């Protein structure tokens, strides 16, 4: 059992990791064919991951409803919404329109999902304004620099700012292109080096957390 639970996954990871790291540099047709096949597998696995996610969500909320845990009413609404949408979606073949006419699934999408998601995101503007008023204070020199930069960028990104202070647009461009880009690049390089190190650790079996716990 240890072989199946531990050694085989480690072996598959090692062989696959090394093979596909090398594949990138080999443009031979058979190498490309192998990549095509494996990415198709990945797409299929991606589809199954979706089923797994939906099943898990169903399970979590079913337990909440059965035990009548605090907030179980929300779980019930989520359950009803999901089941209703899936049933109607399957009936309409997952199409929002058929021959130009909106389906029931399309109606749910256009008049429920789109405005609800839009509203959730739009509410952020109100909370950001409130949070900025309460917490965006120049408590230190660093905070003051951040504050000034934020004000300049906010001015430079809207026509009214450029109209009142014409230089704000150019200063904003400089902040974004020079200061922001260089710092972001440094962070990206750090993250990428970390990703390379972690990948090597996984490929060579040093990092085994992905195998999960359980008995040996």
């Amino acid at each position, binding site marked *: 059992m240890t072989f199946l639970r531990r050694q085989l996954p480690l072996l598959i990871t090692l062989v696959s990791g090394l093979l596909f790291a090398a594949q990138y540099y080999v443009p031979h047709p058979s190498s490309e064919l192998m990549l*095509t096949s494996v990415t198709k597998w990945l797409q299929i696995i991606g589809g199954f991951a979706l089923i797994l996610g939906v099943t898990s969500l169903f399970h979590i909320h079913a337990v909440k409803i059965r035990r009548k845990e605090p907030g179980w009413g929300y779980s019930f609404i989520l359950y009803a919404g999901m089941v209703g949408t899936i049933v109607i979606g399957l009936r309409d073949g997952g199409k*929002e329109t058929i021959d130009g006419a909106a389906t029931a699934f399309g109606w749910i999408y256009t008049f429920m*999902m789109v405005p609800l998601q839009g509203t959730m995101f739009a509410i952020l*503007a*109100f909370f950001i304004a*409130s949070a900025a008023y*309460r917490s965006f204070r120049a408590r230190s020199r660093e905070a003051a620099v951040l504050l000034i930069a934020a004000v300049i960028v906010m001015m430079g*990104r*809207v026509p009214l700012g450029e109209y009142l202070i014409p230089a704000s647009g150019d200063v904003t461009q400089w902040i974004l292109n020079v200061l922001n880009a260089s710092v972001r690049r440094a962070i990206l390089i750090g993250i990428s080096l970390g990703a390379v190190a972690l990948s090597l650790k996984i490929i060579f079996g040093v990092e085994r957390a992905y195998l999960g716990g359980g008995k040996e």
Partner: protein
Amino acid sequence: MTFAERMLSIDRRIIFLVIGLCTLIPLLYPVGLAIKVSPEVRSVYDYIESLPEDSVFLLSLDFDPASKPELYPQAVSLLRHAFKKNLRVIGMTLWLPGTGMANEVISRVAREEGKESGKDYVFLGWSPGGSSVIINMGQDLYKAFPTDYNNQPTSELPVLKGVQNLRDVSYVISLAAGTTGIETWYVFGKDKYKFELGGGCTGVIAPGLYPLLRSGQINGLIGGLRGAAEYEVLIGRKGKAVAGMDAQSATHFAIILLVILCNVFYLLIRTSTRAAEQR
């Protein structure tokens, strides 16, 4: 409680009201201030302008309805430009919740521009896998999407004639609200399959994409509603993005004013506290 302390603990509903009014009033009574076009938006426009007729343009609408206000106008402008230039347009999405919206925008703009599905454009829809979809399209587009969104076999569509994989695509633009998006298209697509890549994104993720822009990994970037408004100005068809810029100007200034006021009150409190301590 001093005046400054009272002002700092102001009811947040007043702030919500100010922001609400700053959004609503300019939408009802637009001012129409001039919009300056930035170099990163112009790069995208110039590249599409430089493409010869019948070139293949792929627009990946990698966002969900939450980002519709910023990215939908970008999609409309880009599609209008591409159709005006008689490019062959391939639409797709890597975000499942955005599929219906992506189909709607492409079909609507195509109808307005007198273009025909299958002949002038195709909407491939969504396929699971994110980065795997990009690699698969790079290897063989017909294996990644055997049929389009309307269940038509992609191999039989005139719009895809001569297109076997991403190497045959002249220009790809990902309109992204996060990951999977522009970075994914660069890492798994452009780097290997050597097509030109541009980007459009929400305002909040735009600063994070500037390293890609500066290094030439993407040739242009349309950032947020402002970027969409700039593109509308460039194609000469002002729409929802230009209309929204006055509201955005007003809300930005309201937030700036609130931040300044908050700091003035904060400094007043700090000064009076220090003075009291010294006494």
